[in-house]
Structures are given as structure tokens and as C-alpha cells.
């Protein structure tokens, strides 16, 4: 794993009217790392994802991806440049088959054929269900389908937004294994937002903590879990 930066977030601020959802956030994302993003509800995690993927324009600041300024490009252009993401709320194309869901991004980006798309389904353990309609899948499978669709863009960075919410203990373990697996198999950089603390601590190499739109800590899982400011943000006071 090199220490080269793949993405740099410089001083990004996002205002919604008078509310400061993100306040001068700076992040350097290293190529190949798994970076965890945590913070209490409403701390700006998903907003940061939305700014990176172009759904919200940044009020201030820039985002550089592989040395290129991608701030405020339209979402489909950012997706094609190699930044894939999943949604907190699953949104598969329900009336389409599992394989067709993956083919939309795979074929359209021109980067993958049917064979590669089926390989992605193997990796995400959905190959047995390739012919079923996406709406027939259970929650864990739908979440894996979200990841499979994002992978079919052959991204370099994958933004995973709470892919483990609502999953059972065993499913979370499987999901963790899969996330490290796809990082190694596809050589990806992964940023994940997660509320399941056990999960994010286990899988992330580095963790970034947001509170009320401001970055309050950054470091290894151990460092972050011992940080006073983090404990205060989560619990209200030092315990």
C-alpha cells in the first residue's frame, strides 16, 4: 500500500441556508486504504458523500481526484471518472433482474462486458440470483447488489454509505469479509460510513470523526476510540 493520495478534500464547506452542514473539512485519502467515517447523527457524513459524488455543490473548497479538480462536476461525470457509491437507503432497479441492474453501469461505462459483470456477482455472492428480479432480494442481498452495481463502474474509489445498517450479526461479519475482499481483489480505495461501531473499527485502517460538520479527529481506530473530543461528541461528556 503506497502512501500516495488518490483524493484530496480541501476546506470543503457546505451550507444549507444558514445551516453549516460541513465546515472546512480537509481529508487526504490514501490510495488503497479503507477509511472509516463516523460521527453522531446529523454530523455531515452523508452530506460529505453527496458533495464528493456531485449531488450537492460545495459552497466552498475543492475536491481533487488523482490531481484533477472534480468539484461541482455533474454526478454522472464523477461516477464515470471512477468514484462509485452506494446509498444509505437501498435503491435497486426493482423491476429489473439482478444481472441487468449490474449491466446498466457495466455496459454503459464501456468498461465491462457481461462476463466481468457476472464475476462481480460471484464476488458479491449474488450469482445464484442473477435472473431474479431485484425486488425479490432480501435486505442483505439488496445491499450487496448496491455494491455490485457500484463495482461494475470499475471505480477507483468506492463510497459505502451504511451498507451494514439493519443486518444481523452474521451478515455484518460476512459483509466485513467481503469489503476487505473487494478492496484486495479490485485494488480499490474504500471510504465507508457506518453506525455499527464494531464493524467500522474492525475493517478501517484509518478513521475520521465528524461532529456538527467539523472534523474533530483522525487516526487509527485505537487512537480515535481514546480521543476525548470523540467521546464527548458521542456521549455528551467525558465518562
Amino acid at each position, binding site marked *: 500500500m503506497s502512501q500516495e493520495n488518490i483524493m484530496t478534500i480541501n476546506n470543503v464547506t457546505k451550507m444549507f441556508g444558514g445551516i453549516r452542514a460541513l465546515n472546512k473539512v480537509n481529508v487526504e485519502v490514501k490510495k488503497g486504504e479503507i477509511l472509516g467515517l463516523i460521527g453522531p447523527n446529523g454530523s455531515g457524513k452523508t452530506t460529505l458523500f453527496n458533495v464528493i*459524488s456531485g*449531488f450537492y455543490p460545495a459552497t466552498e473548497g475543492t475536491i481533487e481526484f488523482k490531481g484533477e479538480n472534480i468539484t461541482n462536476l*455533474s*454526478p*454522472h461525470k464523477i*461516477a*464515470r471518472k471512477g468514484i*462509485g*457509491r452506494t*446509498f444509505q437507503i437501498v*435503491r*435497486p*432497479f*426493482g*423491476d*429489473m433482474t439482478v444481472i*441487468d*441492474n449490474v*449491466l*446498466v*453501469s457495466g*455496459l*454503459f*461505462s464501456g468498461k465491462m462486458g457481461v462476463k466481468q459483470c457476472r464475476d462481480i456477482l460471484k464476488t458479491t455472492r449474488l450469482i445464484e440470483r442473477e435472473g431474479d428480479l431485484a425486488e425479490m432480494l432480501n435486505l442483505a442481498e439488496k445491499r450487496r447488489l448496491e455494491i455490485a*452495481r*457500484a463495482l*461494475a*463502474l470499475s471505480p477507483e474509489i468506492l463510497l459505502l454509505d451504511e451498507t451494514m445498517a439493519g443486518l444481523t450479526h452474521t451478515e455484518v461479519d460476512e459483509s466485513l469479509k467481503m469489503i476487505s475482499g473487494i478492496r484486495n481483489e479490485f485494488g480499490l480505495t474504500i471510504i465507508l460510513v457506518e453506525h455499527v461501531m464494531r464493524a467500522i473499527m474492525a475493517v478501517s485502517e484509518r478513521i475520521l470523526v465528524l461532529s456538527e460538520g467539523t472534523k474533530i479527529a483522525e487516526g487509527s481506530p485505537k487512537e480515535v476510540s481514546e480521543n476525548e473530543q470523540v467521546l464527548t461528541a458521542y456521549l455528551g461528556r467525558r465518562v
Partner: protein
Amino acid sequence: MSLELLAQTIINGLFIGFLFGLAGMGLTIIFGVMKIINFATGAMIMLGAYVGYWTYTYWPYSAIPGIIVSVGVGFLFGILVYQVLVRRLIGKPLLTTLLVLFGLTSILENSMLNLWSPNPRSIPIDFPTYSYGLISISTSRVFVSIMAIVATILVLAVFKYTTFGRIIRAVIQDKIAATLMGVDVNRVYTLGFSLGVTLTFLAGALLAMVYPFEPFGGLPYALMAFVVVVLGTLGNPVGCLFAGLIIGTVHSFVGSYWTLNMSPAVAYLIMIITFLLRPQGLMGKKE
């Protein structure tokens, strides 16, 4: 009430049903993709008819070029209308769409009137008619029906098996998720709208081979197309074809056994009943 009249009524009904189905498909694809109701459908059907008519007038050897030219012009016209007008209507209130597209209807109809006079026209192709007892089947109607079926199958095949079709289906279901897959929604809208207009033009070009038409003659067809779209489930092309055949048959029965003037009234009664009993349409799933 003879058996022959009954058979003839059904045959005529199915035939015109294909045309209603095609026009409805044009509407339903546009609605499905971008939630815009093409209120200019009637004028576009007539424009398609005129394009077919003029092609035949200048090249009166076969019916095929008229259809091809009409389809091509429809596609380009669709891109033009989308880029100039419809692009600006996305996400705007329904009333804005209504006014702008009624405006377009007015521009189109009056331009056609000015250019080509109010005289009714029809494409004078000499198709033979076969008679079986009292039932007569004109080959022009058979030809038109086959064309409509071929067009439907083509559209469905494109939807089901091509990348473009998968992308359109993806955009219909979830625009935001499709954007994340790298889909340029504005381009899909352009192509989706032109595809819808193309089918509308095709309906016009086929209609012109069987019925006379004039600049303001599109409204009755457009009205039927709206009923077909509701009955066949919004956004569902296959449903449109079935609903087209049903409404066509009803139209024909009302004409044979009552009076053709009442046909739109009956069609709209069916639409109201659909709204009351099965608002999701024939092909829709229960919400």
C-alpha cells in the same frame, strides 16, 4: 345483428386498436422516462401523417419509404422539441407543461393548415381488398397492423436486450441511482422523448394509409391514446398495446351498434371505471 357484422366489427376494432396502441406507447414512454405528458400528441400524429403523405406523393411506388421517412423525421423532430421546449419543462408544474404543449399544438396545427390547406387527404395506395362472404378485409389494414406489431416488438426488444433499453428502464425506475451508474440523464431524456415522438409519427404515417386526415384531425386519436395509457398502466408499453386493442374494439362496437360519435364518451367512461376499480391499470401491480 348478423354474425358477419360482429366479425367485421372485431376485425376493424383490432386494426384501429393497433394505431391507438402505438400512439399510446409514444405517450407512455415519454411519461415513464421524464414524467411529462405530451399534450401535443394529436398534432404530432397529424404531422407524421403529412410526412408519410408527402413522401408517397413524391415517390409513389411503395408504402415503405413514407413510413421510414416519417420515423426518421419524427426522431429528429423529437430531439428538436426536447432541446428547445421540453428540456425546460422537466420538474415544472403540470400547468406549465400543459400550456407550453398546447401552444406547440396550436403552432403545429395552424402551420399545417397554412402550408397544406384544410382539405382532408389520404395516401391513395391501391391495396386490394379480399372478401369472405360479407366480411371484407383490406390488405392495407393488414399491412398497417403488421407494421404496428413489428414496431411494438422492436421497441420491446430494444427495452429488454440493449444497453440503451436497460438504461431507459433504469432511469424510469430511479433517476438518481441511474446517475450514480454514470448515466447522463439529460441524454436519456432526449432519446426517450424522441423515441416517443417517433412512435407517434409512425402511428400518423400508418393511419394516413387507411383514413383521411386534416390539420386539426389529431385530437380524437390523442384522446384515445390517453385512455389507452391509463388502462394499460402508465409507463408500460406492453400494457399499451393490449389496452389499444381493447379500446379499438370498443370503439368499433360503439360505431357498429350505436353511433361512432359516442365512442370517445364510452372510452372515457372506461377510463373513469379504471380509475375507480383498478387505478394501476391492467398491467400494474397492486400498491
